[in-house]
């Protein structure tokens, strides 16, 4: 019931007392009983005394056809009437005397009514029946307005959520589609690189074995190099062997110490001086191969993230999923120092690697954004994994793998800690990155589905998320 100002409420109470207390005009309606049917002739105005009613609107019937039987599907629910609401207001006062709705009692109910024969009480003081009923009309108008307003805002909220979900799902589908196309292209590059390298190597070998050797050395050069080391070694070799700058650099890659230099054998350096380009050719093929592997790794992850055609299987290496996630975020984490302390003898778990990658990428990605947005100096993200063993008690019913991702970014304020895992919660505002506010809600959903836990600790110096995942699936 809507509360209205006193000058309306007092006359309203009088109307209820004067017109709706006559025992001869009180009806009991059992649960499920009909007060009135749609389009039925009805000369009464009801006041609900007890119980709730629901009003349905059935689709307009065609001429000659019947209203649906009670057993058939009901029409759309239009409103509910609770005690102290008036029903059939419109048909009564418009004198159409036909109900627009099909009104049914939800429980055993009681109504009082007046009809078109009811005479005005004390008209000399309070005026005609219509005049006396103005407060009823005002009340009903206000109530209906309120009902519509509530409906509209609920609908808008639902629509907003739907749009967000649709946006996320469109992005997912779109990226899965692109990833699928790229996958084929990258696959061709990757495969052909291997073929070309093998063929080239044997062609070169037929002609001059040393060239094939240089090519192989370039192709198989897989060590991590420090630019400054190579540079200083190349300078030494350049002077020592009177090599062109490029050739000296190649030699610096091949021979990292005097020992390695001695092993190359006589004539190698002399040959290298003129033919260093064969090493470069091999190195180019190596770069091609590495770039295509990198691309296919990213494509695979994007495809999995967008596609969701996954299954949980035993034997999944959590450390590998962490590395996959970091691989996917290569570009994002460039300006952040990443420390990993991954436990070597981590037990494998029953999981879907994609979902694990999704968990880590979302947390790391969020940490990066938080630190960049707050201009954290010397940002560091530390990821460590450990094994937790079952304690035979309730606390740890099975073995767990724990992954802690911590950063030295800003503290997560106490008051939002509960909310960060809710969908549509985001603090990301600036820059090209747009926050869908779905990241951590996905993390929560995934971790919950594994029967795992998330612990969040945050202060000025350190914010850490610890994810515990059971090594075997917990059911129930």
């Amino acid at each position: 019931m809507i509360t209205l100002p006193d000058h309306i409420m007092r006359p309203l109470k009088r109307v209820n007392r004067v017109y709706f207390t006559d025992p001869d005009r009180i009806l009991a309606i059992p649960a499920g009983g009909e007060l009135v049917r749609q389009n039925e002739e009805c000369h009464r105005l009801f006041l609900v005394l007890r119980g709730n009613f629901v009003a349905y609107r059935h689709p307009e019937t065609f001429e000659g056809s019947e209203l649906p039987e009670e057993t058939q599907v009901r029409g759309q629910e239009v409103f509910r009437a609770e005690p102290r609401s008036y029903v059939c207001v419109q048909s009564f006062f418009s004198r159409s005397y036909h109900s627009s709705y099909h009104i049914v009692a939800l429980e055993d109910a009681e109504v009082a009514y007046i009809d078109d024969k009811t005479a005005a009480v004390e008209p000399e003081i309070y005026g005609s029946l219509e005049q006396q009923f103005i407060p009823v009309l005002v009340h009903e108008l206000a109530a209906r307005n309120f009902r519509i307003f509530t409906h509209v805002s609920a609908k808008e909220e639902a629509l907003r959520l739907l749009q967000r979900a649709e946006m996320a799902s469109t992005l997912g589908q779109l990226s899965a589609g692109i990833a699928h196309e790229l996958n084929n292209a990258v696959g061709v590059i990757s495969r052909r690189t291997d073929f070309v390298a093998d063929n080239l190597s044997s062609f070169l070998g037929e002609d001059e074995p040393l060239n094939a050797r240089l090519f192989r050395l370039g192709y198989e050069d897989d060590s991590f190099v420090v630019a400054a080391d190579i540079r200083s070694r190349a300078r030494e070799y350049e002077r020592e062997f009177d090599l062109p700058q490029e050739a000296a650099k190649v030699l610096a890659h091949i021979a990292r110490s005097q020992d390695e230099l001695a092993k190359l054998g006589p004539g190698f350096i002399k040959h290298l001086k003129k033919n260093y380009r064969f090493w470069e050719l091999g190195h180019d093929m190596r770069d091609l191969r590495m770039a295509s592997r990198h691309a296919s790794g990213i494509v695979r992850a994007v495809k999995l993230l967008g596609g969701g055609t996954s299954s949980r299987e035993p034997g999944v290496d959590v450390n590998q999923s962490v590395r996959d996630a970091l691989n996917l975020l290569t570009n994002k984490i460039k300006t952040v120092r990443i420390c990993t302390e991954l436990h070597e003898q981590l037990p494998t778990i029953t999981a879907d690697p994609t979902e694990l990658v999704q968990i880590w990428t979302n947390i790391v990605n969020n940490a990066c954004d938080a630190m960049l947005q707050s201009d954290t100096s010397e940002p560091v993200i530390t990821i460590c994994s450990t094994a937790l063993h079952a304690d035979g008690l309730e606390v740890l019913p099975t073995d767990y793998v724990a992954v802690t991702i911590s950063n030295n970014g800003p503290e997560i304020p106490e008051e939002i800690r509960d909310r960060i895992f809710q969908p549509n919660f985001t603090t990301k505002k600036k820059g090209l990155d747009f926050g869908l506010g779905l990241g951590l809600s996905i993390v929560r959903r995934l971790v919950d589905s594994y029967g795992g836990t998330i612990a969040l600790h945050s202060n000025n110096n350190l914010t850490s998320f610890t994810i515990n995942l059971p090594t075997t699936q917990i059911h129930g």
Partner: protein
Amino acid sequence: MDKIHIICVDDQPEVLDSVLRDLRPLTPLVRLEDASGTADCLRLLDQIDSEGGHIAVVISDQVMPGETGTDLLAKIANDRRFKHTKKALLTGQATHADTINAINEGQLDNYVDKPWEPEKLLSVVKRLLTLYIMESGIEYQPYMSILDQKTLLSKLH
């Protein structure tokens, strides 16, 4: 003949190799050097300078671990030893603000978008090299074959 250096800076070795390869037509008249980041480049600058070498052009990536390309270029711009050194940014990731900063703080001479066209990159570097040689008063005759003729003419008149 003076030793003239061109330095390329990028944290990705494959990208760095590609840039060096594209600029190889300039060798052996100039030396091509590579650095893996801002700190590495600053060390290299000190070393070359202490050996009396010239640094004609620095071409840097923008997004790298540690300091950005813009930071590096700003440091070079504020160093008296390198007042004639030409500075170029080679990047696909600089934001609008980065670019403005690079121009104002780093006194950027050129901006090349990634992925780049080798011919375009080479002609940009030739032009910057020509400017450096003319502005720092180095005898230009030995370098004629790798200089940008139009820039050379405009500086001669």
